[in-house]
């Protein structure tokens, strides 16, 4: 029931041996563009972080094909429960880079109201990209709950839950996959095996023979795919999504890929990742690989690629500049959204905080009275 050889579609020369990705050309280019966006977003965030203008970011270099390929298998009515290293899925589905930059700066326009660390996005439109949580694995049984609810209501929604190799050791992985197996929930579990959980290599994470096989413990088929091959990732995800939508139950996908950067902008991977690994995977960069396919298919040439890259980079740079101009969230955002309605004790604490800020001259115009 479990595959062990990673599925590949795109060959060294960009050929696909006649495989039909079942996507219009514009879609294929859209995937390419989304990968470029991820990389540009990353690069700009790294610079912003190094310049001390944002506090933190999460590099995605090397993982773009997994994110975008998997996202491309979903409809807008489906749900994504992402990890913090998944925002290519949001970009693919059309979340504006500006929305994301608001989060990176934790500013007043951030959907999460500046409450979360950067990269902890939450979107409901154009697809449900569920509020990212730092604790690893907690989102997995939640994804199953969403899927089960959809099924009980007779909807054909599919839920994608994404996590890392490290995430498979979490409680949520165990309970989530077990419940999904018993309930035959319409969920696709995407394990992004990028070789490392911060500084811990997979052999410190588990003695299992890869990650796809972990599905056996839950009666869930496991599929291994080359995570740097966008079409392969799309293919297995689409199959899993269709199976789920048709009532066939969950699938566990292991996408074998590699984190070319550090765990985060606070991390120096050279301290622990052997240099050979970077060299090995550098040659397997998912973006040039997909470029080759597009070129072989006659959809892209060098000039178009350069232009598209320049365009997305500019869009993101503009977004960063715009987001940086937006001020911090209002003081009352500390106190709202704890509950649907504001309880008296929190209101009182808010009033005191506002008083103090006013005395200190830190209250901003418009904050005149505590508004909640």
């Amino acid at each position, binding site marked *: 029931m479990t595959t062990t050889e990673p599925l590949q579609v795109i060959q060294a020369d960009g050929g696909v041996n006649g495989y039909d990705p079942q996507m219009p050309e514009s879609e294929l280019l859209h995937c390419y563009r989304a990968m470029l966006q991820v990389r540009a977003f990353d690069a700009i965030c790294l610079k912003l972080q190094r310049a001390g203008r944002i506090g933190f970011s999460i590099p995605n270099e090397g993982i773009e094909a997994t994110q975008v390929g998997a996202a491309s298998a979903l409809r807008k009515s489906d749900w994504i429960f992402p990890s913090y290293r998944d925002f290519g899925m949001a970009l693919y589905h059309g979340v504006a880079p500006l929305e994301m930059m608001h989060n990176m700066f934790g500013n007043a326009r951030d959907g999460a109201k500046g409450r979360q660390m950067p990269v902890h996005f939450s979107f409901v439109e154009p697809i449900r990209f*569920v509020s990212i949580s730092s604790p690893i694995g907690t989102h997995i049984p939640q994804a199953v*709950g969403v899927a089960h609810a959809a099924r009980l209501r007779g909807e054909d929604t599919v839920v994608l839950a994404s996590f890392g190799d490290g995430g498979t050791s979490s409680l*949520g992985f165990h*309970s*989530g996959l077990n*419940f999904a197996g018993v309930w035959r929930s319409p969920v696709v579990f995407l394990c992004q095996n990028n070789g490392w959980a911060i500084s811990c290599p997979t052999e410190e994470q588990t003695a299992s023979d890869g990650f796809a096989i972990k599905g056996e413990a839950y009666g869930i088929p496991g599929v291994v795919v080359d995570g740097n091959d966008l079409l392969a990732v799309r293919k297995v995800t689409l199959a899993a999504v269709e199976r789920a939508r048709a009532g066939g139950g969950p699938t566990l996908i292991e996408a074998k890929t590699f984190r070319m950067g550090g765990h985060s902008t606070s991390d120096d991977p050279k301290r622990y990742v052997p240099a050979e690994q970077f060299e090995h995977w550098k040659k397997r960069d998912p973006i040039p690989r997909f470029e080759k396919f597009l070129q072989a298919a006659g959809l892209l040439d060098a000039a178009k690629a350069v232009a598209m890259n320049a365009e997305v980079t500019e869009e993101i740079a503009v977004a960063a500049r715009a987001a940086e101009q937006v001020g911090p969230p209002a003081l009352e955002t500390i106190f709202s959204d704890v509950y*649907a309605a504001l309880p*008296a004790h929190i209101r009182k604490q808010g009033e005191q905080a506002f008083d103090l800020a006013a005395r200190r001259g830190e209250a901003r115009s418009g904050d005149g009275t505590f508004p909640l």
Partner: protein
Amino acid sequence: MATLTLLQAINDGLRTAMRDDPSVLVFGEDVGKKGGVFLATENLQKEFGAKRCFDTPLSEDGIVGAAIGMAMNGLKPVAEIQFQDFIFPAFDQIVSEAAKLRYRSGGQYTAPLVIRTPYGGGIRGGLYHSQSGEAYFCHTPGLKVVVPSTPHDAKGLLLASIADPDPVLFLEPKALYRSVKGEVPEGSYRVELSTLREARAGKDVTVFCYGAMVPVSLKAAEESLASGIDVRVVDLRTLLPLDEEGVLEHARSTGRVVVVHEAPRFCGFGAEISALIAEHAIEYMEAPVVRVTGFDTPFPNTLEHHYLPDHRRVLDAIERVAHF
């Protein structure tokens, strides 16, 4: 109105909610065919089918995690944790997730679920079938914590909890499941959350309590009449968000306060009541604020009757604050 035990009132509350709203689901370990180990969910699977009342694998983390997802996606999950002692595998889901989802998503996602669980001593359950863990949860902004002590409130608070837009931990005093009876209205009604109940009027001393300590406190109040002390008993009912102003009004009006709970004393819920008073009503106090609680030990088995506060321990405290 029927006369029901607290357990029957909860069963009735669940049935009422499920009849009124097809999106209400009940699940947990052994809640289906068996109807729960205490029979709180008896006959629900029979009436509503296995799609609306069902067993789960033995994973509290999964139960609460899945409930959060269902709640995010428009259902009204009412999850049972078999004993409150076994809720800790779900602690992360409750404290890190359910309680923080609305906040961290800027209100984009919410998790209006109810977690029901029996808590407290009185059944010779030893360390792991007797605990009162309310303080662990009351320190968690975003969560609501409700504890009924009468059949009427049990049903009305449960229905209010199910209707509530926020995650609610509903703690059921298992010692009272079958030992208290009372009139319970038929059909749907709600007891508003975050409201106190004056279980007994009195002007000399206020006893704050909840759950299984309410009858214990009432008995102590009755007995203190003999020493001429007129005791008010206030059932807190909702511990979080607490009606702090209500607590302070009662405290100020009698100037003498006893706080009673089963849980260990240190950093227990009673500390918050004392602290509120020490901060906002100390100038009205004519006596120390005395806590009567379980001991700062795990819960024993054979000697549980020594561990659990009884009316005599409460009476001692009442006399101490009355005659200070």
